[in-house]
């Protein structure tokens, strides 16, 4: 097994953990982290898998991942701003439907 493929499998694992955490957690920050894990897993699959198919470095998926990382950081920053504003207004870091009876 090439190391490219191994990392693709690693990406699969990250995605699984990410999805599990994303659905399970109600704390928004934890969800955000889960989303980032999911993203990293996807990037690993994208590069690892295509390079294992080609058997050599493939610059196209690498460039795509660069774009993807920037988009992900933009989304993360945006989510953080929203979360912080939400927390400042309501003193909660979870959405209303996840707060349980209070």
């Amino acid at each position, binding site marked *: 097994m090439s190391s490219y493929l191994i990392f693709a499998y690693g990406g699969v694992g990250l995605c699984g953990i990410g999805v599990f955490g994303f659905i399970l957690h109600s704390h928004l920050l934890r969800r955000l982290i889960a989303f980032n894990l999911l993203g990293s897993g996807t990037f690993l699959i994208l590069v690892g898998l295509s390079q294992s*198919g080609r058997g050599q470095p493939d610059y196209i998926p690498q460039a795509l991942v660069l774009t993807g990382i920037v988009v992900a950081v933009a989304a993360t920053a945006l989510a953080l701003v929203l979360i912080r504003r939400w927390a400042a207004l309501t003193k909660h870091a979870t959405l209303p439907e996840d707060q349980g009876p209070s």
Partner: protein
Amino acid sequence: MAHFPIAGLIVFPLLGALVSLALSKRWRTVMSFILITALLLNNVSLLFQFYGQGTFNEAMGNWSAPLGIELRVDGLALIFSLMSALVASVCALYACVYLSATQLKLFWPFFWFLWAALNSIWLSSDLFNLYVGLELLSLAAVGLVALSRDATSLAAALRYLFAALLGSIGYLLGVALLYATYGTLSLPELSQHFSLTLSSAVALGFMCIGLLMKTAVFPMHSWLPPAHGGALTPVSALLSALVIKASFYIVLRLWTELSLEIASASAGMLMGILGSAAILWGGWMALNQTHLKLVIAYSTLAQVGYFMLIFPLLSPVDAHASHLAFQGGVLMLLAHALAKAGMFLAAGNLLFCSGQKDLKSLAGLSRYRPLNIFAFGLAGVSIMGLPPSGGFNGKWLLIQSAMLQSQWVWVAVIIMGSLLSAAYIFRVFSYTYREVEGGDSFKQPAAVLEWTALSLSVLSILLGLASMLVLDLLPISAVVAQ
């Protein structure tokens, strides 16, 4: 100048975003409207270019696919581009009267980015480019939802953001698998080599789930009603009319380009079942809401269900029936965009008059604002799918297609959905007819607000008479592979 109209669809909105961020208050609005006019003209010239030369591709940066990104102008892309131009410009007009100065200042750049994202999605034929377009669209939409800045809309924006992010990642996972399998990102090239292997099936599964989540297809819909119902009125209109269409459009593209109806019949069936559930559930929930904008938001859920019925009706054997279903679905998408935007704007006016969100507060409004109620009613006609309207024609074609293939279940679902939608629309209508004691203390909205709402509603009705103009852009070759 052959490259101009197509590039204009991207350049003008981006310029709009730049201008609205860089200029001072007065020039911001003036320049925005100049650019809106330019975009409308641009769309028309693109239409004529299309009439002249038919479907054509444009290689960005002169790098043709698969190395570069190609834009494609075909009938479907044009219809959606024209649709967004119409709806967006009317909504902009509405917004610049409706919103406060601070809100408007922030509205413009979001609006322009949104439009740029929409156009990029309609035109793109590159899988990864579609992903970037989707992200741009989602973030602009989230920003617009957060524009009203109160806690409710923040919660809605967060919910929306997380759903959108998850959806995008699902899509990107699919793209990753497809690229690894076929080594290309260009959709036309992919369709040449495509065969439904295990990994492509997984890829398409992830892509569809992600995109359908962004479209708010049942059961992944719970983010939509608070986001669309809670946003500022022109924003609700833009979101319901245009934004959810984008991700659906990509599903439709993938499906027809890759001829998935041939690959797997059960996938289409599954989509149909989801759609049916959406139609019934959305309709039922709309019937039980007490807030006007939530009724309309749930109605969007139900309408999305109708679009989903295209997929089981695309048939590998009956080209004519497939064509009917495709045309009908697109017509419904278009009619829904016009009618739902008109309906949201009209509802916004009604809420402005009464100052409350509750349906009960509508009592007496049909006397006070007959024109506005008329606008609401006309949009309602199209949503219900009663003739003459674009919504009716779309439904008619879907029903015809289902009948020709003896798929009676979908006929029954469409009929039940129509009755449900009639029930919730007339329920709103009857509230406005109530007469209550104790005089009216209504505020009067500006005339522009009412006329913009009416213009969209009237368009959705006129679409019922001029459907051929749209359908002529969708020849049978657009849906059935040779």
